[in-house]
């Protein structure tokens, strides 16, 4: 009877492990943004060439990180990425949250309009006194002193 138990255990365990492995490979095969659309490398984030991925919305597979599972949805418009959304992330409480605060790509043209505003202060990476003198902040300070 013991032999039966040993053989049965080996068989059952092996089956379970194979099933798990199979399930795992279908997860990783679905990885990547573009599966069937184009032959160029998937995942290019700033491609504006015509050979980039076709327009549409692509959902990547769920990837496990130590903070939880992350799944990204990318929207391609006019050949480049217009929207990146994280669909699935567990926050500290283990609850799924829709990421509303994700920093998505923004085009220079979108910020262009704000560059000529009249500001009272300028933020920037810490500059030395030398660099300060060449900065916009110093111009402001001189004007306002």
């Amino acid at each position, binding site marked *: 009877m013991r032999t039966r138990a040993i053989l049965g255990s080996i068989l059952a365990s092996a089956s379970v492990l194979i099933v798990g492995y199979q399930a795992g490979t279908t997860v990783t095969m679905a990885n990547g943004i573009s599966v069937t659309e184009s032959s160029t490398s998937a995942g290019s984030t700033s491609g504006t060439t015509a050979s980039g991925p076709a327009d549409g919305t692509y959902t990547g597979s769920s990837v496990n990180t130590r903070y939880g599972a992350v799944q990204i949805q990318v929207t391609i418009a006019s050949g480049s990425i217009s929207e990146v959304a994280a669909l699935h992330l567990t926050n500290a409480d283990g609850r799924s*949250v829709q*990421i509303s*605060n994700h920093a998505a790509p923004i085009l220079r043209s979108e910020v262009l*309009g704000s*560059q*000529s505003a009249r500001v*009272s202060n300028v933020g920037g*990476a810490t500059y030395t006194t030398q660099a300060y003198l060449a900065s916009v902040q110093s111009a402001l300070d001189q004007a306002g002193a």
Partner: protein
Amino acid sequence: MRHTLETMGTVASIELPAGWSRELVAVGAIFDEIEGRFSLYRPDSELSRIASGQLVLAGASGELLASYSRALEWRGTTLGVFSPHRPDGVIDLNGIVKAEAIERAGAHLQAVGCPSWSVNVGGDILVSPTGGAQLVGIADPADSSALLCSIRLGGSRLALATSGSAQRGDHIWRGGSTEPTHFVQVSVAAAHIVAADVLATTIVAGGPEALDDVTTRWDVDVITVDRSGALRASPGLRRALVADIAA
């Protein structure tokens, strides 16, 4: 009225309403105290004496220990990405004390009832909660004479801290890595200047993974510039962008 002070190796720009210029003295004193305690460029500062072994950490002043402990807390919550420890083992609190200086200056100005002020030390800005919205520009890392964009500060976004690898020598220690950072400049808008400063440093050091982590776990707004000049911004920051004002 705008006033400038040279302090902590950089320049501070402080805007005070008419008649409040006397507070400059107090603010200057705060900056001097902090520089005297924490500057690693001064051999007689408390932090330098600890670095050289003249003073043991356990014998340090309460203020230094408080700053150190605060830096360690941030190290914990950023999972090690922000760290007050240099690879050579020296404790470098520059990542936090400048912001603490701004924080204390702001607290002082509020305490004495100054109605509207802003404190800008080396590019990190804190504005008064009672002064109404202020328009603030963010420098373009590629062109020091131009702005990247401008945003509105106020409400729950009183502080704007910017970190980058473009200008001053890195006080961003990235686990011994010497690879160039993914982001050349990161600006974080938050309710508190220390949080904004630490998180901006964290994102520069940790790259895109840290960016997602920070925007998820903290209520902040971010705009980043990467090595190729491409930008990323959180939804809140987009909304805060100042619309095109003709002239």
